[in-house]
């Protein structure tokens, strides 16, 4: 019988090793492009672990030719500090699936927009307590009044903006005047 806690420790080590080494039974040659997309659905945004990099719309393309795999990734913001970590997480997931040398291409054009967040992704953001971006980025006014943002907790539209910038570059800080809870709003860009 393992001592208390030992099982957990061993599994953590196994996971670490697994991420670093190609498993013996991996057959990346059997993967289709769709399989790679499915694999990427499991890679979460480290800042917003409720959504995957695919739901967030930052994976732009998957190119698969035999064992050669490259992924086009676009950063959300120019200075987003999570960009490099996200790339590492993607590489790690692909290596664990058996790809020996997956490549990441960072693409800036066209620039990422919150319009690329999937409907499912938006629902997951709301369930996570983050109000999803409202409307389309093309309709945002420069100096006009901000849109009505619904509270992700109680649904009330009686909310106010506390700050144009929140806990990360992609969010703004709001407060619900109905349930009095503060919340993050995923800015529309």
């Amino acid at each position, binding site marked *: 019988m393992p001592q208390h806690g030992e099982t957990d420790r061993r599994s953590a080590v196994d996971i670490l090793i697994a991420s670093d080494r190609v498993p013996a039974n991996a057959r990346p040659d059997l993967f289709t492009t769709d399989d790679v997309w499915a694999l990427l659905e499991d890679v979460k945004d480290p800042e917003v672990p409720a959504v995957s990099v695919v739901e967030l719309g930052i994976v732009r393309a998957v190119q698969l030719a035999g064992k050669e795999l490259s992924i086009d990734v676009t950063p959300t913001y*120019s200075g987003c500090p999570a960009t490099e970590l996200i790339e590492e997480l993607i590489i790690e997931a692909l290596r664990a699936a058996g790809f020996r040398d997956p490549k990441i291409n960072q693409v800036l054009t066209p620039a990422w927009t919150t319009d690329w967040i999937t409907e499912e992704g938006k629902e997951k953001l709301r369930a996570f307590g983050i109000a999803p971006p409202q409307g389309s980025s093309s309709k945002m006014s420069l100096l006009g009044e901000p849109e009505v943002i619904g509270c992700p907790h109680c649904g009330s539209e009686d909310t106010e903006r506390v700050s144009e910038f929140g*806990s990360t*570059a992609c969010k703004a800080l709001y407060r619900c005047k109905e349930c009095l809870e503060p919340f993050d709003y995923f*800015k529309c860009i």
Partner: protein
Amino acid sequence: MTQAEALKEYLLRLADSDMILGQRLCELCGKAPALEEEMALMNVALDLVGQARNWYEYAAELIDDDRDADRLAFRRDAHDYRNLLLTEQPNEDYAITMGRQFFFDVWHYFTLKSLAESSDERMAGIAAKALKEATYHLRRSSEWVKRLGDGTEESHRRMQNAVDILWRFTGELITPDDTDRVLAEAGLGPDPDQLAEDWRGMVSEVLTQATLTLGADDAWMYMGGKHGEHTEHLGFILAEMQFLQRAYPDATTW
């Protein structure tokens, strides 16, 4: 001046202005007047440093002398820096911090808007991305100028003081030189006359709403940042910002 020379020079101006203003804002980390303001300032700084990196990377490829983005940012001295003088001015009080940001943001917004249409695709791509961020910066800084200008007697006095102090550095934003003209003629950079008109228009609109008085049209303007002639402040910024890279050049592990 050839188009290629002008482009390298112009990229350094964009990169250096972003970098120095980003560094200035970072000085307020841990010292901002309120937690929300601190987060906002650091977010803006982060955007600017990220944009600087994109411009530096492009500049480094064109300059092509083995210097990378880090080396351009951290191993050039003040006379090689091409940032706008406005960006290196000290934070002082919050009215000056936000006034500086506002004058810069208006210039940045219209410049990026034009660059997003540049015939140089790489430039257009970086600018289109940066423009989304700069739009938020401008919304925020213009709101602060209005709030402080049209606020209490004290906040109005301070905001007017900020406009009066910073005005002398704004001429450089909208006064073109050969580099600007060469790029504009080639369809790569903004049209100087249009940029000046847009900048004056929006600054005048916001300052009027904020019950503030603009500086004089014929006021003496300090220029030279775009050619490496800086105010005394830049040396101190670089001394702090570049310390590590100067003390341990080419270190691979921090």
